[in-house]
């Protein structure tokens, strides 16, 4: 029997990750850790805000994680990772100098140039600030392209607040409005308390027809917040969210991320509320 194995030279595996070194690592909270990565091959990366990477630890597995740095062509990228299981726990043990595997960028993301001239409303709940931050930083880096910029952020307790240095920077800027609230304050907390929807009463009424909103957070938060946004008169196709689904391949094959006829890993994770409504199983 001639059982020669064929290995076509052009067959490159989309499952093969690129090696990336951790160049910065910081514990944000007990559960959330921030990382900045640089690729070992020196080739850098180009991505849109809203895209994600498959982060790989050989021997444990892979997890889809949003890129939280601003979009564009660059040498590094940032992520905020919550320990939630095998892969993410293993990632939490890593520090500066360690390497991980990265596949991506994956998913659709959103080109913010399409929103030029519009007012922007960012509403982030909990870890939703990670993907949302990519949009926020991209907007602030191109501040002149957009109208009013409003950022609302809600977290469970003051201890759970992420990206403290960004929050300070946004608070200090006079070209954007930034409000934060916690569900439960502590003795030192002097800011807003209450769920994130309470912040909607504290902001000026937006120019509804000309506002794009990014509402990113847990499904319950999205459901209540989207009502506020609609009540203010925002258009369904100007409200964006990021959907979380179980993902195994990121390539539109394994089926795990499928919502009806949509593969979140390819067609998402960023969807307009109009699309989410059509999907029915979206939120």
């Amino acid at each position, binding site marked *: 029997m001639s059982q020669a194995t*064929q290995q076509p030279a052009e*067959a490159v*595996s989309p499952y*093969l990750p690129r090696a990336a070194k951790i160049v910065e690592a910081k514990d944000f909270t007990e559960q959330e850790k921030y990382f900045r990565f640089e690729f070992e091959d020196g080739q850098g990366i180009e991505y849109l805000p809203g895209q994600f990477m498959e982060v790989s630890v050989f021997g444990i*597995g892979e997890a889809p994680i949003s890129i939280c740095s601003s979009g564009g062509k660059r040498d590094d990228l940032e992520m905020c990772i919550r320990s939630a299981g095998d892969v993410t726990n293993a990632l939490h043990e890593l520090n500066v100098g360690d390497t991980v595997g990265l596949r991506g960028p994956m998913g659709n993301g959103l080109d913010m140039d399409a929103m030029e001239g519009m007012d922007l409303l960012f509403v982030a709940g909990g870890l939703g600030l990670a993907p949302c931050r990519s949009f926020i930083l991209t907007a602030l880096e191109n501040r002149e392209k957009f109208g009013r910029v409003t950022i609302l952020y809600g977290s469970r307790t003051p201890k759970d607040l992420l990206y403290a240095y960004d929050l300070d920077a946004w608070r200090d800027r006079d070209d954007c409005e930034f409000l934060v609230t916690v569900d439960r304050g502590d003795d030192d907390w002097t800011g807003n308390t209450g769920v994130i929807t309470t912040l909607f009463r504290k902001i000026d009424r937006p120019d509804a027809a000309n506002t794009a909103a990014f509402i990113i957070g847990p499904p319950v938060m999205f459901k209540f917040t989207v009502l506020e946004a609609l009540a203010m008169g925002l258009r369904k196709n100007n409200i964006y969210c990021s959907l979380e689904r179980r993902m195994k391949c990121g*390539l539109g094959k*394994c089926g795990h991320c499928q919502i009806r006829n949509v593969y979140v890993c390819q067609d998402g994770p960023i969807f307009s509320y109009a699309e989410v409504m059509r999907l029915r*199983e979206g939120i």
Partner: protein
Amino acid sequence: MLPQILPKDKLADFARFLMGEYRLAAPVAKGHQFAFEFIETPEDVGRIRMDYDITILPPKKFLHPMYEELLRFGGRDPATGEAPIQAEPTVILGAHPYDLHAIATTDAAMRAEPADPYYATKRDATLLIGINIRGYVNDEQFMADMRTTEPPEGGWDLFMTDLGDRYYVEVGSDAGSKLHQAAGMFTQAAGDDHKAKQAFDNEKASNLPKRLPYDTRYLPELMSESYDSLLWDAVARRCFSCGTCTNVCPTCYCFDVQDKLNLDAASGVRRRQWDSCQLHTFAEVAGGENFREHRSSRLRHRMFRKGKFIYEQTGKPGCVGCGRCSVHCVADISILEAYQQIADEAAVSAMEIAAAREESQ
């Protein structure tokens, strides 16, 4: 490419010829059922059963194996990863038309960008030799409705029809043409052969009546209309979420990916394995949120993938009507029956709408 004739007593020679050039897979008896297996020894050749009714698993297991290595790694260091993309030249002998259609469907799905090189490499190294069917072999099949009783437009190499003492062999590709020429046991089909094939086809058609009360052109639309139907809850009450239906389905290709360590606890493989959207954890994410928590939503998802989504994504049938899922379901859940029932529902809702209109006038 003109049809050929292979005398039946030359089938074993042909199989031996194929074994010399390729890894050969063919249907053999397994208890009172049938399975595709590799034919490796002279004894194996004698076990080939071109007259099988249906195999337990479809030939997808050769193209999208139950377990498949995606990567090998030497340790935690991502630089140690490599991708073992390879394939042995293989012939799958004896695939029924519906299974050829199912392969065309998975071809389209796996080759869609970003293409899957593991599947594509195996598929490129595989020749398909089909064998004709005479009719339904159980009450759960509905190939006539799914238009899978004849081989698909392309994607196969030879297609055989049993004419008693000889096989009438249609040639579907250049590779198929080269294959029968190289084998040297084939002769060109003549007038009598064509007539006999025609008689076979007539007989076959009468054995393959349609079993759905509508044209499957309307299946995706009917599925849409049935989305909120209580039917899915009713059927799902019997379902055990065992995943047998997706395992035996020739057009199901969902998978899980897991890392397996070698004994040194550092090196290992990242491999994929068949998974099932019917299993409870399939759509569960961190934090415990499960987007298809209820059995009925999972059952509906399978029925929709088969009757609508895959077709809309690939332009090929998402269900080829082979009946395997229904025959092997321990709860007697029948996809044919479900597809029949959604038609009743549509008829009822159309009647309700008409009645409501009348009342409002």
